[in-house]
Structures are given as structure tokens and as C-alpha cells.
């Protein structure tokens, strides 16, 4: 029941009813990433007259957050790549780190050095100088 209500009344959770209807009518599923986000493009790769290119979109699993899209899918979504991350000829770069969504606002958010919000906010005052050691 909650899921249905969320679906009808919210736009930030998954897709709206309108988007789902559009996806059902015009969309064609391309794949799914490790977070469960689903990626779609227009059926038969029809070129969207307004865009001049094939329309590509994502239906998030859970809350809609663009930083949830991992690097490979990001490239595909932005028409930088046509190769999908799960295809064989997809080249992953050596310097790519495992994808991490934006953690701002969550417990895992970045806290700068010396921040009192840090978990182990052991006073960083000690680190501002190096004591002399008589040994």
C-alpha cells in the first residue's frame, strides 16, 4: 500500500505514474546497474525529433539521486559511450575507483580534518605540532 501511495504521490521515489506509462508505451529496457537502477531508451532506438538523438533515461531504485549512476552508465546516459558497462567491449579505466554515491547529508559524509563532526573527533590540536622527544 505504501509503495503504491509513494508511486502515485511522489516524484522523488522511483518513477511517477506518468513516467512509468511513458516507459511502458515508448521505452525499451537496456539494462540494470549494481544498485538496481533501470536504464531505458526509446523503442527501436527511434531518434527523438526534439533532441535529434535517441532518448535515454533511468528509473531509480528508491530515492532519485543522480549520483547513484555509476561511471559506465553515466557515460551511456550522457551519450558519451554507446557501449554498455556489461558488454564485452566495454573498457574500464585503470584509475576508476569503485562508484560511490554522493554521501552528503548522510552519516558517511566527508568531514574535513579537525571537524568536530568527525567520528573520532580526537582533538586535532595534538597534530598541530610535533613534540620534542628526549630519547
Amino acid at each position, binding site marked *: 500500500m505504501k509503495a503504491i501511495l509513494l508511486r502515485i504521490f511522489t516524484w522523488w521515489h522511483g518513477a511517477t505514474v506518468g513516467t512509468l506509462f511513458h516507459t511502458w508505451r515508448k521505452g525499451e529496457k537496456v539494462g540494470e546497474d549494481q544498485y538496481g537502477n533501470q536504464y531505458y531508451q526509446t523503442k527501436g532506438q527511434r531518434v527523438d525529433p526534439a533532441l535529434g538523438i535517441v532518448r535515454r533515461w533511468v528509473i531509480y531504485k528508491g530515492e532519485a539521486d543522480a549520483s547513484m549512476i555509476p561511471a559506465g552508465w553515466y557515460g551511456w546516459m550522457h551519450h558519451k559511450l554507446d557501449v554498455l558497462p556489461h558488454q564485452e567491449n566495454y573498457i574500464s579505466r585503470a584509475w576508476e575507483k569503485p562508484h560511490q554515491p554522493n554521501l552528503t547529508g548522510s552519516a558517511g559524509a566527508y568531514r574535513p580534518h579537525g571537524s568536530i563532526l568527525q567520528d573520532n573527533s580526537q582533538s586535532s590540536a595534538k597534530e598541530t605540532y610535533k*613534540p620534542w622527544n628526549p630519547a
Partner: protein
Amino acid sequence: MAKIIIDGNEIEVPAEYTLLQACEQAGAEVPRFCYHERLSVAGNCRMCLVEVKGGPPKPTASCAMAVKDLRPGPNGEPPVVLTNSPMVKKAREGVMEFLLINHPLDCPICDQGGECDLQDQAMAFGIDNTRYAENKRAVEDKYIGALVKTTMTRCIQCTRCVRFTTEVAGVTELGAIGRGEDMEITSYLEQAMTSELQGNVIDLCPVGALTSKPYEFTARAWELTKTESVDVMDAVGSAIRVDTRGREVMRILPRLNEDVNEEWISDKSRFIWDGLKTQRLDRPYVRHQGKLKPVSWSEAFMTVAAHVKGKKGSQIGGIIGDLASVEEAYAFKSLLETFGSHNLDCRQDGSMIDPAWGRASYLFNAGITGIDHADAVLIIGANPRKEAAVLNARLRKRWRQTGLPVARIGAPADLTYTCTDLGASLSVLADIEAGKGDFAAVLQAAKHPLVIVGHAALKGSDAKAVLAAAARLSQREGWNGLAVLHHAASRVGALDLHCVPSQGGLDARAMSKANAVDVLFLLGADEIDVDLGAFVVYIGSHGDRGAHRADVILPAAAYTEKSGLYVNTEGRVQRGYRASFPPGDAREDWAILRALSEQLGTGHQLPFNSLNELRAFLFKDYPALAELDQVHAHSAAGIDALIAHKGAFAAQPLEPLFADFYMTNPIARASAIMAECSALASGHVAMAAE
């Protein structure tokens, strides 16, 4: 004087003023990049354009045009200058647009961001967009030493750094090659600058082309707390601003003080701050069976009290170091006096100067501004370039203005200006007094002769004779040119307090000998080797020579961590302020002495409980120290007795006072930046020797 109308206001200014100076006098703000009050006029940035009525029908660079160059109107009206006309506005916008063609838009990652002249003036006088889509010119970064980081793409070719190094610092190591867009500021050979004042190009650079290398990417200008203070790296007492973030000193910048440092400071003053964060004494130590063990304050005090108990005054001694403020020297002296001890000395370098000869015998009597009036200078034993780099820049300025004749007795050194070498032996002094030699005549003819005496010449038993001869050579009506150049920030203040042995007390050298005293207190004294034997109590901030020798270490505050008075070489009392707090359990020196005094038993307790109370006692005993920031220049009081003294001079050549400019105190020795500079400087020496 000439009349001139600026923005409708008629004012009268000296005829040789530039239009820019006249505009400033009239209160009109003129933007500029290349123009700097203390450097020659270059006139190449074109930012200071103003409209001149009656002149050519084009904007004029106000920094390069003098008031006397302007023609009056047809009926003799004063010339008219406009700084806010539409033509000037358009000209400034045009210049700014040109400057920004090749300036990168990297302000977010630029260390100058927030304190950048180009940023500010682009906001105030520029336009809000650009018409250039072309690629920007890129310039390779240059290596110019361990202190100054270059990002030459940001350079707008104002040439302030080139003019500073050649004119003020006196090293021709920076220059420009190429023309127009291809002009580049370079050190030609990618070598480190050799000047002791090179850090000032960071302040001079109006953009982020030259920034501080040690400070690189550590803080932003607006997040720093600024504390105005006084430098203690030499006895000039340069005005500095200590920038802190939290409890950390992030950088040190000069402040304007026309009478002392103008707006320069030496590299040691500017880049010492990393030494404030290493090798710090942050807890008391007591030596148990040959090993220093951390203890509590009360334990440390008890240990000292146990060793002091039952000792006579003659068995106790104290040496004051080079960085001590007047307050702690006073507290130190008061504490020793409670024991009846006369073994007190502030001259750990072994100089023989004595306050009994009169205050005029140990001051830079002419004052630092007196250099601007000097017409002949004799330097005895001092190397002002190393002992007081900023003061040397003033000597160089006078030399550039008037061709000041300078002669020097002492170990050979490059002072950055022409200097007649009179040899390294003090016996030359007798010849000069007798009127022998060319320079003796110059000195005799001079109206304002300045005789600078360094501590290298005051270490022998002939110190009084040297001072007497210097005093005789430098007295004129209303002018006392006897100038003792100190190198330790604490020295003049401690001499004012008479912190020297009295009534047969031992001096620093005698106290450091084995078994001279039983208990020896060192107040930050690190430049002296204390032989084994005495029980040594070290009060100081850094784990240096004194701490290694100590039996009890009482951790104290460094100069940025306490408020204190310092008297500079000309006798100017200046007040430094606390910028951060001492690390760990360390405390301010006077508070340590006060707390210790209570533990030493009745009769030893010092009478003050706060710094203000201490100062009240200090000013009651020594009223002269209450006169902040004042100099009684040319006072010759008590110098007659000195002048009457005659003595022979030692024949052996003078040694340089210290070998390494960058390693003269415990903070500097703890600093990695200073160590790097020192290595670079000794590399230069090695290169020169090859």
C-alpha cells in the same frame, strides 16, 4: 609646490610629485599594478591611466608623469586631472581586459585568491565579461628557490619582483626575457635567489604568480586570525602580522612601520613558522639516572626546589637567551635576586658590552631612520646583511640615493653595496682615529657619520676601547652616530634591566664552565654550551641545545604564544601580542617563574600574579620601558665617560658572528624550511668556491 586641480579639487603638492601621488593626496583612488612607492617607476601596467586636460588627447599613465610636467591653462590656470571621467573608466576597462586576456581563471585554486590586486581591481574597474575566445598563453613555471613558488602563467609582467630584487635586495637574479605577449620573468639559470629578503616578492606580486611555497594550499586569507606582533629573529624588531588558524600559526607577514622595517621583513622572520610546530617542549621533564622522563609540573618544581634548597646566591646562576621578552627577563632577574645571586647574564654570545657604560653605549643611537641622513658609514665587525637584513636594505637604499661611502672592518662579506674593505683586524681603528687613510678623511668630513659596531667586535677585552673609538668618530652637534647593531631580540631589553653580572658575579662564559655554579637557570639560552657539573634548569620552548643539557625542563611559550615587550637595537620598546597558545602543558615564561618561585620557599615568592601586575612592577622600576614605540635618538647622555676611555685594540682578525644566517636560534633550527634554505645557501658558497 605646484597647484593642480584633481577631480575639481584644487590642491597644492610638491612639483616633483607624480600625478598618482597627487591624486592620492587629493583622495582620489587610482588603481595600479606596477607602481610601488618603494620601487622605481616602471609605467608598464597602464592601469593608472588618468585624463589630463590640456595634454595629449589620450589617457596618461599617472605614475610616470610628474606634476611639473603638466602645462598650465592659457590664462595660467592650474593643470586639470580627471580620475573619474568616462574616458578614464573606458581606459581602465580596456587595460583590465587586456590584462585578463592571458590571465588564467584559476582563482579558486590560487593562493592569492582573496588578497589579489587583480581580483579586486577587476571587480572595481573591469567589465563583467570578456570578448576573447582565443586560447590563453601559457608560461612554464620557474624555479627561484625554496621559498617562492612560481605560477608564471598568472604573471602580468608588472616587474615589481625584478625591481625589488635589483633595487632593494641588491641581487640581480630576476629579470625579464622576451617582449610583448612572450615576455617572461625568469631567474635565467633556474637557480635559487640568494637574497635574505626574497620573501618580500610574494607580498609585492599583485597576482598569484609568486606565492609562498611553504604556505602553498594550506589556508585561505579570510579564514585566518590576524595578530599584530613584533619579530624576534633579529634585533631590528620588525613589525609583523601573525596569521593563525585555530591554534596553528599559518604564516607571518610584514606590517608597515616606516621607522623600522618600512614594509620588508627578512626570510627568517617570514618563514620561521614551521619551526613553531616542531621540536616543541610540551611537558615538563626531569632527568632520572641520565634519562629525561616526563613529569608533572609540581614534580618538576619540587625537583628544582630540592636542588636549590640551602644554596647560597653565589652557587646559583642564570643566563637569559636571545628570544626572551622584557617581562620574563625581569621576572628571571627578580627571582635570582631573591637568592642574592649576582650571577646573571644576558650576553650568551660572550660580548663584553656593559650597561654601566651608559645606555648610549649599547644602542643604535642614530635610530634606524638615522640611516636616511647618514653621509658616511663605518661598519666595525658587523655584517648587517646577516645580522639585520632589513636594516641592510635601508643602508643600501641610502647608498643608491647618495652613493653613501661605506667602509668595513671585519671578515670579508658581500653587503649588496659598494663597501671599502679595511681588513679584518681592529687595529685599523687606531689608524682611522689618527686620520690615516682615505676613509678617515671621509669620516672626518661627514656631517652625519654613522659608526655601526657589531657584536663580533665586542667579544674581546678591547670592547670598551672599540666602543670608545666608535663614539669618538661618530659624535657631531645634535648627532650621535654610535650605532651598536645587536642581533638578539632580547639583548637591549635585558641590558636595560641590567641583566649582567654585578658585584663580582660570573658572566655567561664563566657560568658555563664546569662547577662554576651549582644550579644554573637557562631562560631559553641555547647558544651556549654548558659543561657538565651544574644542575641545569632549562625554561624554553624548543628541544634544542639547552634542553639536551638540562636536568629539569620547564616547557615555555614561543614568541607568537605570549604577549611581551621587546626593545630593538635602537632602544624602541615594542609590544608583541599573543597569536596562539603554547602547546600541551607549556606555559608562558613569566608564569612558570612565578609558579616556581612559590615552590622555592618563603622569601622567594615573586610579588605579581598576572602579566599586568608584572608590568606595573616593571614600569615602576624602569619607567623608560613604559614608553612604547618611542626612540630618544641621538641622546648622548653618559657617553662622555665612554669617549674618555682609551685602550689598545686586539690585532687578531675578527670572526663572523655566526656562520649560518638561517640557523641562529632554536626556532630556526627546528624549522625544515630554514634547514632547506641553509642547505641552498651553503650550496651557493660551495659553487662560488669552485
